[in-house]
């Protein structure tokens, strides 16, 4: 039986798992809770059930994302920048620039042959991150996942002059009570996020093709606003949330195969799922 590999990406908002052999056999996406260790066990067990595998079938496990340190059974921790680059390169080999819009940060990553050649990140200010969209969606009484399709019905994007999430929220509420339509306001906040993200990523030399990952990639209105700023099309992978976890699994596969080519097996963490439970 060929070996299997798991990648687990614990983001600030969502946790993702990918299990792969030669191809992806299972993936899981769930919200990140406050207790990463318990969660890491839970999601990997779910993914194993989905893949009809047991924990012992996993030859190597790599953790990534902001909570990657809290996965005791992971054999290696790798930054999400590296993992996004690997995951995207595997899915879309022509991509040179990645825009990642996550729950609490946004990033730009330049890649060449699957290797990271530069990156920029904003995790200090909520503007330009998923958090901004979440807060505004909330005050407009619109589900986050509906923002994209709602914005497509806008006749004109409302101008949101505030950058700061706190001030933009007030501005949106004022404009709403002033009679502006929800669709135009949503289109306006997509413009606002796109402006911030473009300013960030533009610090790198943006080269096509450009791919978008993270939760922001699921918002068609935001993707369109970004395409408008960038001036060319942006590729959205089939499941934009799991590219980091996929990249982590791929790192695991590479490590394993490198050792295997010398007739060796890589050192493991020594932690099983049961042992990890004792920590929680």
């Amino acid at each position, binding site marked *: 039986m060929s070996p299997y590999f798991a990648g687990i990406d614990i983001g600030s908002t969502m946790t993702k798992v990918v299990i792969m052999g030669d191809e992806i056999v299972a993936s899981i996406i769930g919200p990140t809770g*406050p207790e990463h260790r318990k969660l890491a066990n839970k999601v990997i067990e779910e993914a194993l059930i989905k893949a009809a595998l047991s924990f012992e079938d996993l030859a190597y496990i790599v953790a990534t994302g902001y909570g990657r340190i809290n996965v005791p059974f992971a054999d290696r921790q790798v930054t999400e920048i590296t993992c996004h680059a690997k995951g995207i390169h595997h899915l879309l080999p022509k991509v040179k620039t990645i825009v990642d819009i996550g729950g609490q940060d946004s990033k730009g990553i330049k890649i060449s042959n699957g290797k990271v050649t530069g990156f920029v990140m904003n*995790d200090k*200010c*909520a503007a330009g991150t998923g*958090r901004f969209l979440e807060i505004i969606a909330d005050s407009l009484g619109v589900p986050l996942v509906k923002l994209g399709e709602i914005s497509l019905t806008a006749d004109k994007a409302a101008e949101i002059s*505030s*950058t700061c*999430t*706190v001030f933009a929220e007030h501005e949106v509420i004022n404009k709403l009570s002033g009679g502006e339509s929800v669709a135009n306001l949503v289109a306006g906040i997509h413009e606002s996020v796109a402006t911030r993200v473009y300013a960030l990523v533009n610090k790198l030399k943006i080269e096509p093709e450009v791919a978008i990952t993270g939760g922001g990639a699921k918002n068609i209105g935001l993707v369109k606003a970004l395409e408008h700023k960038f001036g060319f099309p942006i590729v959205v992978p089939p499941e934009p949330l799991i590219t980091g976890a996929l990249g982590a699994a791929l790192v695991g596969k590479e490590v394993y195969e490198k050792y295997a080519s010398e007739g060796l097996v890589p050192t493991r963490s020594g932690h099983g799922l049961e042992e990890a439970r004792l920590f929680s």
Partner: protein
Amino acid sequence: MAFVLGIDVGSGYSKAVVCEDRSIRSFAVMPSGGDYKEIARTVATKALLEIGLSFNDVVYTVAAGYGAGMVDFADHSLTDISCHATGIHHLFPSVKTVIDVGAQFSRAIRLDNDGRIANFILNEKCAGGSGKFLQTIARILHMNVNEIGDLSLTATNPVEFTTACAVFAESEAVSRIAEGAAPADILAGLNKAMASKIITLVTRVSYAPDCALTGGGAKNRGLVKAIQEELSTTVLVADEPQITAAFGAALVAFERIQAR
């Protein structure tokens, strides 16, 4: 002897100061709400009534602040920046740098030796260094914004915040509360985060001592302490820091009748 009126309609609070010549006789502070025209009249009336005066006793009125244009009974209007400068220079002639922490905006103003404005910078892009930040935090801790300062001074182990973004600091504070951090330690950490944000403004106007803190934020003693630690110097705070610009406006009103 003449009574003059200074009014500062801010984004959060409206302030009125009645002066007899250059001396403060009474003042009033009220939340601005949504009707600036109305609040300007109300807060001025309140200050006047306190010393048994009416609008007819006022010789000259100067309005300043975010809603200055709405004060229909003012004889003249000015920016709050220039009124802050006038007010502070009168109170503390040695001051070269003024930090104003208002409800929505914070500013740093650099004065020359004669109290004239040499430079200023406004933070209108980010809630991080403004009163809005404190209000957000007060809300999640279920306390009054006025209680933040004193409680933060009792901190024994201030929490380190990674950002001064009002949105991210709020979620960070919630996580720290969940981990059992004491409210005093959280507040001390937040005052520190806010101070570091404010210092970036101060540096950009080329800081020089003495330094004064004005606005509602100056009432937060924990913030004053955090700013003092950042600047490694004592920061001057007026007895009523919130009325500095309104007082400056009243001083300008008096100068204007002197010049007539």
